[in-house]
């Protein structure tokens, strides 16, 4: 297993492997998105209270989940890069940040578009919304540190430290709806007992969540390939890869 891990974390191998995997991941993402959207927008019935406006859930909730998931991946990769100085881990962390920021932005914006008709406001400063906004700023901080300074490796280390410090925000976001009175409602799916959402709505929601995971994998590998090419442009394996049009 160590042999395999070591081989995989070599930039040359990763670059080639990612190039082969991307089309497959993209195809799976596309199929899942189609299925999830069809199930969510066409097949699922309207909600008993919110009518059709609740259909924003199929993009809002998966995006919010991804914003937390990608942050944990980014912080973990950053930590691995910090301790073991593994180049690929730094690249994964750097490539995850913009994708995570995008999902956070989508979660906030679609939540706003949902909040206006249902709650009666675009935005409130309750614990859930505020902590999610802080998450967006953490992503911005990581991205800014990544692009600051000439040395990419120093930049990676600085942003890894910020990402690790920001991990404290993750449980706060998750539990904010339980710890405080918030306008945002409690968890629907990740409760200990049965999810309080009807199966006809839960299935497309979960399909969309898996689709978002595959989308992340696709986008991450694409970004990581470009980042590797940029960081390693003088190495031999790049020359070979370019010669073979990989």
């Amino acid at each position: 297993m160590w042999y395999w891990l070591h081989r995989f974390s070599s930039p040359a191998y990763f670059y080639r492997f990612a190039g082969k995997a991307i089309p497959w991941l993209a195809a799976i993402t596309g199929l899942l998105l189609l299925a999830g959207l069809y199930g969510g927008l066409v097949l699922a019935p309207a909600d008993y209270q919110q009518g059709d406006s609740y259909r924003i859930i199929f993009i809002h909730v998966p995006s919010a989940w991804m914003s937390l998931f990608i942050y944990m991946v980014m912080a973990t990769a950053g930590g691995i890069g910090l301790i073991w100085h593994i180049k690929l881990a730094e690249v994964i962390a750097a490539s995850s940040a913009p994708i995570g920021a995008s999902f956070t932005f989508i979660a906030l914006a679609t939540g706003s578009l949902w909040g206006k008709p249902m709650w009666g406001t675009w935005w409130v400063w309750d614990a859930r919304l505020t902590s999610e906004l802080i998450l967006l700023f953490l992503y911005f901080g990581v991205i800014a540190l990544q692009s600051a300074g000439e040395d990419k490796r120093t930049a990676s280390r600085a942003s890894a430290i910020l990402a690790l410090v920001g991990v404290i925000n993750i449980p706060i976001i998750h539990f904010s709806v339980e710890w405080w009175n918030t306008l945002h409602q409690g968890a629907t799916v990740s409760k200990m007992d049965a999810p309080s959402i009807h199966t006809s709505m839960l299935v497309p929601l979960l399909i969309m969540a898996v689709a978002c995971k595959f989308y992340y994998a696709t986008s991450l590998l694409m970004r990581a390939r470009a980042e590797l090419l940029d960081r390693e442009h003088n190495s031999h394996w790049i020359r070979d890869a370019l010669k073979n049009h990989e």
Partner: protein
Amino acid sequence: MKPRRQRMIFVAVMLLGVALAGVLVLQAIGENMLYFYSPTQIKSGEAPTNHTVRVGGLVVEGSIRRETQGVTVHFELTDTAERITIAYTGILPDLFREGQGIVARGRIGEDGVFMAEEVLAKHDENYMPPDVAEALETARSGGKVKAAP
């Protein structure tokens, strides 16, 4: 081998420090993060009366009264223990209805009526088709038309 161990300890100590700081901050914030007060807290005088506060609860069934002229609406809000009366002039959110959870922002008047400047609906975490909701309601009220509030 040695510097890697040092870095590992550095990361571990940093994470511990951050976690500790987070817990302390959360302890300090505590109740101040409350987005709204309950009617019971308002009645017992826990909420400040001299500036704007928020109150959250359920709209009491059958308590919504609209003034014949103008758009001012009066209704009662409950947390199942206490009730307060709320007066509001303006557009109500789509979800505003009897039995619905809402959060109102405003001031407590001298007559005890809460003068709201803004009313937001708070929906629950349940999602289901209308027929399922109806079936559930019938089952809960034991086949009766509607349970008494």
